[in-house]
């Protein structure tokens, strides 16, 4: 198992955002994390990446208990995190944004090359010198993605990466993730059910901070509890 969560919980002043979540993520898998708004998805990945301190529970990454490591040390061990609300360095160039991500493990010309390659993969190579804040919203999402993949993480956590992308960009995103999955384990929060069904090997459904169901896309699709709590009858109804 690359990542294990045991009994992870987070309370915010009486609100149980995440309660007793167990999660096992084997190396090489694409796992989707779905659930209605407020189900605790972003909080859960925040606990895993160390952005938020848990109220209870443990996180084991690559065989080591990282519960007490600060976020930057977890990232250094091979996690990468992309933000739900786009969080790029708005006043720095696109190339510098990716460069900062690349230089944590690479130096000089190698870092520059890796940054160029990552921008190329997400289709932003032409905008390398643009200030990141001047990019269209969808392009900022792609920049987030480039900042994630340039780190060559063992675990890539993506929080709603396709939000704001055009149809064409979403198709490109799918290809990219399939390609990445050969070398990286991916934990994906996603609202677009078509993407989830197409990409994920397994799906974990959160509701009210708890794991409601877990299984293959077909199993989740057929799960009555999930249907009742979330899908509302057909997968398409939950999209967006």
């Amino acid at each position, binding site marked *: 198992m690359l990542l294990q969560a045991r009994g992870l919980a987070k309370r915010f002043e009486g609100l149980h955002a995440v309660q007793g979540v167990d999660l096992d993520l084997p190396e090489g898998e694409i796992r989707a994390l779905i659930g209605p708004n407020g189900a605790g998805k972003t909080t859960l990945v925040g606990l895993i990446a160390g*952005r938020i301190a848990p109220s209870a529970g443990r996180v084991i990454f690559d065989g080591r208990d990282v519960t007490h490591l*600060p976020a*930057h040390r977890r990232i250094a061990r091979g996690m990468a*995190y992309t933000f739900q609300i786009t*969080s790029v*360095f708005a006043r720095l160039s696109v190339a510098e944004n990716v460069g900062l991500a690349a*230089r*944590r493990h690479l130096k000089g010309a190698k870092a520059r090359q890796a940054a160029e390659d990552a921008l190329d993969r997400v289709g932003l190579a032409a905008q390398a010198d643009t200030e990141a804040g001047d990019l269209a919203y969808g392009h900022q999402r792609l920049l987030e993605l480039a*900042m994630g993949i340039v780190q060559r993480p063992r675990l890539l956590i993506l929080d709603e990466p396709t939000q704001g992308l055009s149809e064409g960009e979403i198709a490109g995103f799918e290809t990219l993730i399939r390609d990445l999955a050969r070398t990286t384990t991916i934990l994906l929060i996603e609202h677009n059910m078509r993407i989830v069904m197409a990409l994920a090997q397994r799906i974990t459904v959160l509701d009210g901070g708890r794991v409601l169901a877990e299984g293959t896309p077909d199993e989740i699709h057929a799960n009555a509890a999930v249907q009742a709590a979330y899908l509302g009858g057909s997968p398409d109804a939950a999209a967006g």
Partner: protein
Amino acid sequence: MRVVAPHLGLLALLLSLHFVLPAYHHGNLARVMVLASFAMGYNILFGYTGLLSLGHALFFAAGMYGAGLAVQHLGWGAGPSLVAGIAAGAVVSATLALLALRTSGVAFMIVTLMFAQAGALTILHFSEITGGDEGFVLPQAGRMVAGLDLSDANTRYLAALVLFAVCLSLSLWLVRTPFGRVLVAIRENEERARMLGYDPFAHKFAAMVISGTMAAAAGATYGVLFGYVGSSFAEVQYSILPLLYVLLGGTGTVLGPFVGTLFMFYLIDLSSDITTAHMLIAGVALVGLTLFAPQGIMGEIRRRLWKGLP
């Protein structure tokens, strides 16, 4: 090279001015170069790392008193005394960084301000050692380094230029290293920098020690070059001045602190020729600059003419 050229050009200009300036401006410029070195130190923390300190007088004074007291009480020469001043600045800034970096934003401003006030009061309290609010004049022997007399106007100018050149080169080098660029990333978006795997505390700590030590080097040099050590240099005015210099010259530009210091120095100098209400003129000029060039002089040049200016 294209980036280094204007900085080398400024140093060459300052060296050539040494031979042509009339005595009055020659003396002023020596003072400006030392104060600009102070401002460059300030700029590392404020301009590049995004931490607004209101306590840099503490570091300036740590350098000045570290050097001055070594001359006064230990009979050291200027060379070792300068080293003592710089070391004092490093120790004081590291200590304050450990305490103040637990806070951020307004709290950081208040904590640095309070510690600097405590420093100024400490100097007044131990007046038998420090000379209290009168300070003390350095003896001639403490202003000699390697047979050079730093109280001589020509030597003093060149010594100030050496300090300035060192601080300028260090700043220019630092902000272009991967480390310096992480500082900028922390300034722009600390949480994002952390989630790229960079330790914000370690980087801010290092930035504050570099910043404080550079300010201390300026303070130590100021004391030795101009021969006087006084508690007024530890007061809040000397925490505000580098902030003003940097804001006027251009936050987060390597040349900005010098431009801002020069501008402010001559603004006050020229307006006090005209009227005793010279601070009024200075104030109006500052308001004007803030309105029409909010990024400072070099910041405006960077925005309009040269995007890649470090």
